[in-house]
């Protein structure tokens, strides 16, 4: 079992040119949890997804899924998309307009690769709350409903891997938040790994365990999400102005008198506005770099509730007024954005012990699922 698990990856090294643009990406992605394929518009991430699905017959290179070869360097033995066991949820859902919702689900179920008791129509309908939609025509569905049906349809083929191509891109903000939990639960509920293409760092932060960063048709880097998100050198790609660290937290208790929830994380404690989650819940918080104040000594009287001790690990200057400082606080990485003047005054340099101060009011509501480790 464990020997087999070392092969549980999606490994690829592929190339495709059209016009002046060339996509050339190689990586090996573990078949577990959700991997975000992240990059700006035109970075080639959707094309890469199509290559993995077998929809770009012109692509060169090789693709291996859990020990099965889907595409070889010599061009022989190309496995067509219908035989790959890879499900795709397209940005535009692509439901069949001649069938109603139940018909779309049945279409996939009839062509399912395997029989799997956990994954029948009833289970999928239940998990995605599709019951009220079954008799509806696809043309009458909202954008969010269409994507839920598309997701359910893909699951019913019992795929080895689900690829999602910006499934929330055409859905407005509030509805997006309604769908995220359904996607987030997939890897656990159905034991199906997901590769999720997006250009929204918020969706990455909310969903992903790992991230593969693509820019101008090339792989920049890939790795566990929290590590990648706090990497100073990746800021130009992960979003300069919304730079922040992801912190995996656990609820230690609620203080109803002060309307605060106390959290613990690997590196200290945090108090945040009261959360409607049970004690013991684990989830992910995002702390923006611009909301973190640094102090060289433990401050005395201070209105801020959260003071976390740490050590400066690295600093990244840019041409503007600010310097991004990466801090190690226990096993957690935090980011702080401070001015050049503050760097001189506090004599900030790698290795310097420091205190990070975070106002409770600046911390976002939970952005993501319980950390999966």
């Amino acid at each position: 079992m464990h020997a087999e698990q070392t092969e549980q990856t999606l490994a690829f090294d592929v190339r495709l040119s059209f016009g002046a643009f060339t996509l050339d990406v190689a990586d090996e992605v573990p078949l577990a949890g959700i991997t975000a394929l992240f990059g700006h518009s035109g970075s080639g991430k959707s094309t890469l997804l199509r290559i993995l699905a077998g929809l770009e017959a012109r692509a060169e290179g090789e693709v291996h899924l859990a020990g099965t070869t889907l595409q070889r360097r010599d061009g022989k033995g190309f496995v067509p998309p219908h035989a790959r066991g890879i499900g795709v949820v397209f940005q535009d859902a692509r439901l069949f307009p001649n069938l109603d919702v139940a018909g779309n689900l049945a279409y996939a179920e009839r062509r399912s690769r395997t029989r799997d008791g956990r994954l029948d129509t009833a289970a999928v309908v239940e998990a995605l709350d599709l019951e009220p939609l079954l008799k509806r025509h696809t043309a009458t569905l909202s954008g969010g409903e269409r994507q839920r049906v598309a997701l359910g349809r893909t699951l019913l083929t019992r795929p080895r891997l689900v690829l999602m191509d910006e499934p929330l891109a055409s859905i407005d903000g509030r509805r997006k938040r309604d769908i995220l939990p359904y996607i987030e639960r997939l890897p656990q509920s159905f034991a199906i790994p997901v590769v999720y293409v997006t250009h929204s760092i918020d969706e990455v932060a909310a969903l992903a365990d790992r991230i593969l960063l693509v820019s101008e048709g090339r792989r920049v880097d890939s790795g566990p999400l929290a590590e990648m998100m706090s990497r100073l050198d990746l800021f130009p790609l992960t979003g300069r102005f919304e730079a922040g660290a992801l912190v995996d937290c656990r609820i230690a208790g609620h203080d109803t008198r002060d309307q605060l929830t106390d959290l613990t994380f690997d590196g200290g404690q945090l108090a945040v506005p009261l959360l409607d989650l049970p004690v013991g819940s684990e989830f992910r918080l995002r702390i923006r770099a611009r909301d973190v104040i640094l102090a060289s000594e433990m401050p005395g009287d201070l209105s801020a509730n959260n003071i976390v001790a740490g050590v400066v690990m690295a600093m990244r200057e840019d041409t503007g007024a600010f310097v991004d400082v990466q801090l190690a606080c226990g096993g957690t990485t935090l980011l702080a954005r401070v001015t050049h003047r503050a760097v001189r005054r506090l004599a900030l340099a790698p290795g310097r012990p420091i205190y990070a101060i975070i106002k409770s009011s600046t911390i976002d509501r939970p952005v993501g699922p319980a950390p999966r480790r």
Partner: protein
Amino acid sequence: MIEAAAALARVDFGPVRLTVALAATTTLILLVLGTPLAWWLAFTRSRAKPFVEAITALPLVLPPTVIGFYLLILMSPTAPLGALWRDATGSTLAFSFIGLVAASIVYSLPFTVQPLQAAFDAVGRSPLEAAATLGASPLDAFFSVASPLALRGYVTAGVLTFAHTVGEFGVVLMVGGNIPGRTKVISIAIYEHVETINYTQAHVLSALMLGFSFAVLLTVFLVNRRFPIHAR
């Protein structure tokens, strides 16, 4: 009234039966043969596409006598195709019902291929890609997704091909001649009636054609309006 009934009784309906048989056979064969051609034209990225499109559309612009003339040459027992047919069957291809069917297939080709190509174009690659990622082989995806979505195109292609074959004259005259029960279709019969100043019979058959043609076109327009694409 009695006079009209008497005229109707004297009309020979053999050409009507023959015309319906010819049009039905041609339509069935063309829908089968036209589908892969229309599919290829809709989805190919080949540079040969405009050439194939032009050849497919030729029967629309050529005078029927030109098509008929070339077909007659091809089918004559001295030509390779005609000789092959005669050796295999013992009869000539020209001036036979099968020869007429073959000629009609060429003559009505664009009326099948063009509506089908437009329908497949409208379906596009997207639903086929979706079907493939759901585990449908290309043939499965054609029958389970593309055909139902292109249903209107099939109805239009079928009706237009049938009607156009019913209305052909020049090609039939060149290739089939005027043999009762074998090649004498309605349009030929009308021509003969007029030539022999038998206007009553020409009237009956012409009125029949007029009514039929109108009904056909009405069907096409009604179907195109009333076919909700998500009908189950």
